[in-house]
């Protein structure tokens, strides 16, 4: 149940991050910080596993800092968010207490998604790379 809720919250956070990137003039840092601050203040007192969910949202907010060339649609952002929630959930005991751990998880999620995209549709990936 915790894992499922973790994924759902990550998807909502990812969609919110992508929407903010597309529809506001906020910088990537501002978008990420707003999402992380909201999650950090709202989720821990609200839910029993709120601290974990806040960490997931924070990691997803870092993933949402992707450039439009790397992540160009809601679908991709949602896939990245789902992967990110799984990486955070199953990687809770890795690099504990080390600053940058969430960002590393976010980067791994983005790279996994990019890798999958390249393998599943190599033509599209090549076109995107050529720009």
């Amino acid at each position: 149940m915790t894992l499922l809720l973790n994924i759902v919250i990550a998807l909502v956070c990812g969609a919110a991050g992508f929407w903010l990137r597309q529809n506001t003039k906020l910088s990537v840092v501002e978008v990420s910080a707003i999402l992380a601050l909201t999650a950090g203040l709202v989720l821990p007192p609200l839910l029993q596993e709120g601290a974990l969910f806040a960490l997931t949202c924070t990691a997803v907010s870092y993933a949402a800092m992707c450039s439009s060339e790397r992540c160009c649609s809601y679908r991709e952002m949602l896939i990245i968010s789902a992967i990110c929630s799984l990486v955070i959930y199953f990687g809770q005991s890795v690099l504990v207490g080390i600053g940058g751990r969430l960002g590393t998880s976010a980067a791994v999620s983005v790279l996994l998604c990019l890798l999958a995209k390249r393998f599943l549709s190599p033509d599209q990936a090549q076109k995107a790379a050529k720009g």
Partner: protein
Amino acid sequence: MWYQLLIFVPLVAAVLDIFNLLSTAFGRILVLAVLVVGVFAALSRPSFKLTTALVRSAVLSCLAALLTFLLSTRLGLGAVVASALVGLVGAQVLKGKDQLVMYMGTFVGMSSALRFPTLGPLLVAGLLGGVLFELTDECWVGVGGRLGTIAAAAVVVVLALIGGI
């Protein structure tokens, strides 16, 4: 090409941690070896120029790390809220690349007080984060989480050096 090893430091550390090897002498030496090879490769790149930007980034990152760490551990705000607060306020003051460097510094400051019982090593990690940011400016461009990975690299390296890992 080899300079890209720098950004893989936290991934190497994560794999070592999964196999409980990170705190061993082998793990620490491997992490430091990856760093040394990466730094030498980065410094020998033709495009690399030693400018004041390196010092500026190091200082900015260090200040952000310190502020975040103090807000997180001394005021008890927690790492997520402290980092986001410093990031949001810093983004109003700084522009462009400085914003990113500052935000990366806050990730260094998200480290646990158990890892950094004193401020000295944290400040070194902050400085190193800024330097690594400049050295890896062509790595993973546009990939979300890149700043956190650089921060983690700095923290892991300092902890490997002082034996706090």
